[in-house]
């Protein structure tokens, strides 16, 4: 699936992972999230091989949001957020005041306070993603791995979720790696982009530097151009 590639992620900021379908974006993310084991090569976190981390210790450092997260019916938002504390209190540990504080803080930061007593299935798409992100925040992980968090959302909800992730990264000094399909959204909300093609990392850099006509053609095999955003928010890509 993935060709040998060497990626170095430094702490802080939002990374966008872009590429065509089947380019290995999700696979790379799952490798980093320890959801799948590498058949060859190594993945290290803070200099330590992922294999050497214990499950809960890893989850205290890295939070992962799968592409279509499933909440069992009847689950309340505050209960979902509280699940994020499992890496801290474990199977038999008490749900302490520290846990309670972390959950309250996470819900405030992600603006789901008013949804706390709603069941997850009654939420709109954007609210639901915010609830899941609240769980990751309660997890107090330094690094968030999000697999297409906006794929099922309309434009306004996409912006709502991505802005939330960006603000979280700025406010709490987190690192987020987001798989995105929409290049313009990626350009708008990510500090750095990484482009994959056929399992190879073919480009890396900040959006303005990476998104050039020839690079885009290499990534997607179609002619695409780039113009500056009319209101001065970076750049916009378009199809010829």
């Amino acid at each position, binding site marked *: 699936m993935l060709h040998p590639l060497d990626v170095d992620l430094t702490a802080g900021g939002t990374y966008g992972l872009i590429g065509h379908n089947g380019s290995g974006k999700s696979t790379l993310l799952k490798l980093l999230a320890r959801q799948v084991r590498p058949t060859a090569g190594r993945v290290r976190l803070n200099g330590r091989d992922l294999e050497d981390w214990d499950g809960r210790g890893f*989850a205290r450092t890295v939070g992962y949001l799968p592409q279509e997260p499933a909440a069992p019916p*009847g689950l309340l938002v505050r209960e979902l957020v509280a699940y994020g504390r*499992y890496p801290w209190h474990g199977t038999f540990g008490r749900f302490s005041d520290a846990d309670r504080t972390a959950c309250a803080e996470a819900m405030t930061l992600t603006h789901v306070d008013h949804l706390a007593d709603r069941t997850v299935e009654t939420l709109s798409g954007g609210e639901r993603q915010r609830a899941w992100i609240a769980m990751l925040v309660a997890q107090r992980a330094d690094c968030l791995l999000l697999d297409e968090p906006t794929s099922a959302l309309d434009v306004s909800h996409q912006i709502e979720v991505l802005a939330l992730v960006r603000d979280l990264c700025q406010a709490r000094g987190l690192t987020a790696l987001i798989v995105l399909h929409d290049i313009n959204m990626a350009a708008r909300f990510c500090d750095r982009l990484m482009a994959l093609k056929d399992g190879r990392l073919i480009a890396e850099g900040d959006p303005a530097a990476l998104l050039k006509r020839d690079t885009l053609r290499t990534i997607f095999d179609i002619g695409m151009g780039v113009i500056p955003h009319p209101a001065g928010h970076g750049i916009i890509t378009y199809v010829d």
Partner: protein
Amino acid sequence: MMAETRDKTPAIALTLFAAAAAAAWLLLREDLPHLLEPAAGYGADRMVLLYSQLPRLVVSLLCGAALALSGAILQRALRNPLASPTTLGLSAGASLALVLAGLVAPGLLVAGREMVALAGSAATAGVVFAIGARRNFDPVALVLGGLIVSLYCGALATLLILLNDRYLVSLFIWGSGSLAQQDWSTAVTLGPQLAVLCLGVALIARPLGLLELGEAGTRSLGLSPSAVRVLAVSIAVALAAAVASAVGVIGFIGLAAPTVARLAGARRVGPQLVWSALIGAAMLWLTDTSVQLLAADMGAFIPTGAVTALLGTPLLLLVLPRLKLSFAGGMAVLSARRWRGPTMPAVAVALGGLALLALAALFIGRTPAGAWQVNGLEDWDVLADWRLPRVGAALAAGAMLAAAGAILQRLTGNEMASPEVLGISAGAMIGMAAILFLITDPAYPVLMTGAAVGTALVLGALFILTRRSGFLPERLVLAGIALGAMLDAFIGALAATGDPRSLVLLRWMSGTTYGTGTASALVSLVLAGGLVGLTVALARWLDLLPLGASGARGLGLSVPRARGVLLVLAGLMTAAATIIVGPLSFVGLMAPQIARAAGFVRGGPQILVGAAAGGGLMLTADWLGRTLLYPYEMPAGIVSALVGTPLLLALMRRT
């Protein structure tokens, strides 16, 4: 299946027929020359050949073809690869109707056996379709309804047989599908019936093909899909009922033959129906001849229907991974309303209610003369000897089944999962049966070991068979159906041999607490307390696992270990409970759902409230069984199945 796959049905049918013919030659080679002899004089061998062997051969061909045809039509009409007379409960319905008629109005059996069977099949079909219609005939929902109705009919029939064993023993033999013939009468009645029905099949074959286009597509071609469906299903029900009234329940031919035909490449309706019928005929002929060959060696009487179920199970399990099932979304039986109040007091109320119920079951009873009576504490010595062990055992069994059911439902993300539905109870029962045949009068620990080994085998098989599909609900359910049918076949075959141990087995099956001693009740209670308590302690795993493997792993849970530990717990609790109340009670399915319906969604409260509900259900069932028909007794397992199943079906119809 690839569209280009070469049609291998003729080859398969030919092979089956050749094998059957070879087996028949082995069986009949010494008798066949009698056919050429002049009819003069009395020759016993010749008579046997002419009036037993040959009619049996013809009947096996007819029944095999009819069942396969019925299955093929059902699968087409309902667009459901799992439909068959067995899985939709048609055969079980016919069987129950005949048992009832045999008890209430034996005259009916002489006058219109077929009509009685038809009424039974039609009634079960009605119930199953009423459930299915609410869920758009979703394949799995339909088969689940069929399975539950089937088990219900089975439980009722078992109860009737238990209460009237002198009159109904022969029904056992019939019920397990014996093809033995004494003359040509069965063949002569069955033949024309099937001929008429086949004519009907020929008429609806083409409209049946159009159903493939789906509801809207069919209608746009000017055909009413529901009319075609009703007609087709009616014919299929009639075919199944005709066979059931002639020779009894013959499982799995109706599922296996069309499945083989389809997998072999018969795609269009015409060939599918024809080849299914031919393959079915050859299958049953081959099975029946092989059974006779084997039985001759062992000198035993084995009903063929029991053997088809035994053979059908592995076949179904083999085919399972190749079946492409579109699974129509969530199986949620109950909308998840939430209990919004404080959890702990609510759980305490549930447990308190259970305690009150236990006291009532302990102190309210009937005098030897039959009058109702509330005992006082002065009778404690007697109560402690006679009632306390039964109340304790029933409570423990119900609580354990409930916790096991809750674990399985959460683990598979399927609200219809339970020890009974997944065949785990059946596994425990098979383990106990094996012990019964190895050791005379086994002690509790030995029996428990047997039951635990049985559940372990079933859990292992389920795990291996469904792991690759990620524990898809329909795979699990099908595997469970197959295992349950195997148990039925086993018990049926045993009962038909007249082995005295079959009565012990039947008593275990029905699940009576009668004769439970203080010691074993105490062991059950301790086991229940420990295992349910351990499950509650692991509630966080039960909360995280429904997030899906990746979600749970993302939070640092070791998913394989959590699954393994919880499965072992569920298996142990099922084994311990099955020893007491048998495999039929359905408490493991109902109790967790009652807890959910009451709004307890999280793992811990669901287990506790579910265990209280399960214990209460079983306690009540046991008490009803002890007092209702006093001085007769009805087994707790069966009573809870009889009371609980309609409740469950009603719940399934809601949503």
